[in-house]
């Protein structure tokens, strides 16, 4: 059974990566923090009595489920919003619905402009990782960031090892191409 110290050490070791993965997926830091907190609380409450060695794959699975749940809830919410907004007459017919998205993009680019060169490169890489299709990104991060082997990644993603290899290969090629186009060679 994982002691309180072991669990604390484990969570401290994974929380930043978990947060980044959630940000890549949901593209919102506040929601990402909520997702990571939910995942941490769930693993402590439901699986806190498991041996420390079992925690990494469990946490990964819980985090991925939390991200998927977020998208499910968003889908339901947006369906209701669409329904109600269609019933409410539009006051501003010229309003641009993409204004919010553009503002988010500006914030990111501003932050990269004010950091050092290394920080800029890291930000670009993170940006390109976030642009990958969800399953490709998930497989790539599990394999190369979380250091899972193919079987572990397949178990965490609920798919076959062949699918993990395919997703990883496609993610690597897409990422390398995108970075090359932005003048970054690793």
């Amino acid at each position: 059974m994982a002691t309180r110290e072991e669990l604390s050490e484990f969570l401290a070791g994974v929380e930043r990566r978990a947060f980044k993965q959630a940000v890549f997926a949901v593209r919102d830091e506040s929601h990402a923090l909520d997702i990571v907190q939910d995942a941490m609380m769930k693993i402590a409450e439901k699986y806190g009595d498991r041996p420390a060695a079992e925690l990494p794959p469990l946490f990964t699975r819980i985090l991925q489920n939390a991200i998927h749940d977020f998208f499910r809830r968003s889908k339901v919410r947006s369906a209701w919003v669409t329904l109600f907004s269609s019933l409410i007459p539009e006051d501003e017919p010229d309003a641009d619905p993409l204004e919010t998205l553009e503002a988010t993009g500006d914030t990111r680019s501003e932050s990269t402009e004010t950091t050092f060169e290394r920080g800029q490169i890291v930000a670009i890489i993170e940006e390109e990782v976030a642009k990958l299709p969800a399953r490709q990104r998930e497989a790539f991060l599990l394999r190369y960031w979380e250091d899972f082997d193919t079987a572990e990644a397949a178990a965490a993603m609920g798919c076959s090892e062949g699918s993990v290899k395919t997703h990883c290969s496609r993610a690597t090629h897409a990422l390398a191409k995108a970075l090359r186009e932005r003048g970054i060679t690793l």
Partner: protein
Amino acid sequence: MNQDEFGFRVRQALNDGAERLDYRTVLRLEQARGKALALQRRAGPATVRLPALQLATAGAAPVDGGGPWSWLRGAGWAAPLVALAIGFVAISQWQEELEIKRLAALDFAVLLDDGPLDAYADQLFGVLLQAEQKADD
């Protein structure tokens, strides 16, 4: 550059980015960790489930199920059923006893011509008396 090498370099960059998180985010993550640790599930001492109505004597039996009183543990679940059956039988006997006493009192009252007037006004009671008279004849 092969796939693994590329993955390793991206990993270094992502680790670098994770280390550059702003103070507020790091603080929020620490708070989240604290909340999670407060909820940590603890494996307590093994709980022994006993039937709610198990007989008290069952506790004296060894854990491995041996001993002269071990059969009582198995019979623990049947005790309420047995008690219920005994209760039904007792109530039935008591009701029967009451009915016999009521009929005896009625017979006695008829024999002494001390029956209530209402009884004679009852049509069925008259039929009963006629039937008894015919039987006596």
